[in-house]
């Protein structure tokens, strides 16, 4: 297991949509060992400041083995991501990763990937991985507006033709939510399919409701506040499915879970 904790340089940093950025970081060993669904913890504070205190978790959106880089997509939502958006290429960021357990890579039967919002990041990584291995998958990506998706797809070199796109305002692809195309897909398949999904909680719940009993496996990537990202603090608890009061820890047991194991 390779696990890096060091300062890594920003090589590429650009805005790809409203408040959405792509960040390319020089981290050859992370690039080499990262698996789809894994994440990194990134320090966002200035060199000699203590605030914001915690590192922020971001999914790896893809890696570039040749350049030895990893890429993440992020949206500016609060203090940390705002600070992050201001760093220039050349700046060093504290990087810890790759972390967590990613998506199942070998699956039998048909495969459907679903990503919503910034949840497209690990789905893009997974999709690229599958394609590179010569396999195939249906990939459904959703966003509120086309703006949010276009730049991200371009940056990650994914052709609009290869994926199914939905936008809430209909400005790109089909108007509506990812569950629309997903429902259609599910009508046409047998029970031996796998769905692998990442996105906001309501989306994951909807995907789970839709696919109930219709697929062999639904894997979902979850989020929670994290302090350490490596199993030290037990802060990232998420309720297990079942009657007993038990928790999984997203950073260590996940972030990707079999949907049957966790409450959505």
């Amino acid at each position, binding site marked *: 297991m390779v696990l890096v904790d060091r300062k890594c340089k920003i090589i590429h940093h650009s805005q790809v949509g409203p408040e959405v950025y792509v960040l390319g970081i020089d981290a050859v060993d992370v690039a080499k060992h990262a698996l789809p669904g894994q994440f990194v913890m990134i320090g966002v504070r200035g060199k000699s400041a*203590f*605030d914001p*205190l*915690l590192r922020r978790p971001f999914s790896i959106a893809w890696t570039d083995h040749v350049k030895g880089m990893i890429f993440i997509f992020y949206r500016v939502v609060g203090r940390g991501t705002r600070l992050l958006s201001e760093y220039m290429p050349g700046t060093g960021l504290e990087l810890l990763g790759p972390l967590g357990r990613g998506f199942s890579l070998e699956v039998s039967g048909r495969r459907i990937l679903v990503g919503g919002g910034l949840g497209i990041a690990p789905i893009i990584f997974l999709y690229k991985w599958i394609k590179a291995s010569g396999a195939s998958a249906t990939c459904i990506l959703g966003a509120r507006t086309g703006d949010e998706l276009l730049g991200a797809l371009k940056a990650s070199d994914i052709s609009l033709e290869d994926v199914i796109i939905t936008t809430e305002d209909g400005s790109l692809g089909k108007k509506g939510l990812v569950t629309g195309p997903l429902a259609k897909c599910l009508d046409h398949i047998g029970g031996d399919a796998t769905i692998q999904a990442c996105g906001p909680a309501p989306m994951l719940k909807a995907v789970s409701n839709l696919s109930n009993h219709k697929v062999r496996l639904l894997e979902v990537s979850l989020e929670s*506040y994290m302090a350490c990202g490596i199993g*030290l603090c*037990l802060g990232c*608890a998420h309720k297990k499915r079942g009657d007993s009061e038990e928790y999984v820890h997203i950073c260590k047991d996940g972030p990707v879970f079999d949907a049957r194991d966790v409450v959505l």
Partner: protein
Amino acid sequence: MGEIRELSDINLEVSLGPIRLKNPVMLASGTCGYGRELTPHLDLNSIGAVVVKGISLEPRPGNPPPRIFETPCGLLNAIGLENVGVKAFLTEKLPWLKDQGISTVVNILGNSVEEYKRLCSILSEESQSILAIEINVSCPNVKAGGVAFGRTPEGTYEVVRHVVEVTEIPIIVKLSPNVTDITSIAQAAQDAGAHAISLINTILAMAIDIEKKRPLLGNTFGGLSGPAIKPIALRMVWEAHRAVDIPVIGIGGISTWKDAVEFLMAGASAIQIGTATLVEPGSAKKILDGLTRFMRQKGYREVEALWID
């Protein structure tokens, strides 16, 4: 002051009563798991001791999420003392620590004096592998209507007096900062026979989610840690050191070697690193290295030479 006289013969060893540490840097309970999780980042044999996550008689699931939240220079947590329970600790966690030869302090918690006693008795079976027991007295005292033992001198005295009777393992009492007068609590621990005290535990605090109009943490209240609380912790260590004769272990917001020096100057004999490890898992080593360098440069030959009289 300014002069630099590199010393090669400084002695980092410290004795906390019967507890001997190869150096004064320890890892604080709840921020280093059961040790093993940290091994990719830190050589646990290079530091003074590891204080494992608080252990109770039975396993505890912990609080509903959200359990943690960031505040300005601070971390708010309400983990709810999730832990595997003493039985699983002894069979699944301690053997590894023992194999590695890691100096292990076991942090324990209970809701009654009886629970603390039973925990200590059980741990005594492994007294060879346990350097010390750290008593977390910030837990609700069921008998006293949920007020933590550690918030009164009487409650503190009561727990400590009983545990020292049932075990040969040295006892460190970890004090709650949520009190009017830390000195009277420190004295109660000493009077009851504690071998050392450690402070501070987290400070009771909260955050509110203004969009949802409700407390942000699943548990409403949480404990504040991190650099934000350092000046408060330092004051309490200063006060406690001046109130008791037993050794004091300083905890609270230590993030840099300079912070460590401040606590040692305030009168601590050792320090614990908590939140800093969460933010950067290798922190303890950096702090130890910085401390060592500082002592060399300034000509402090041993840790307690740093004390301000």
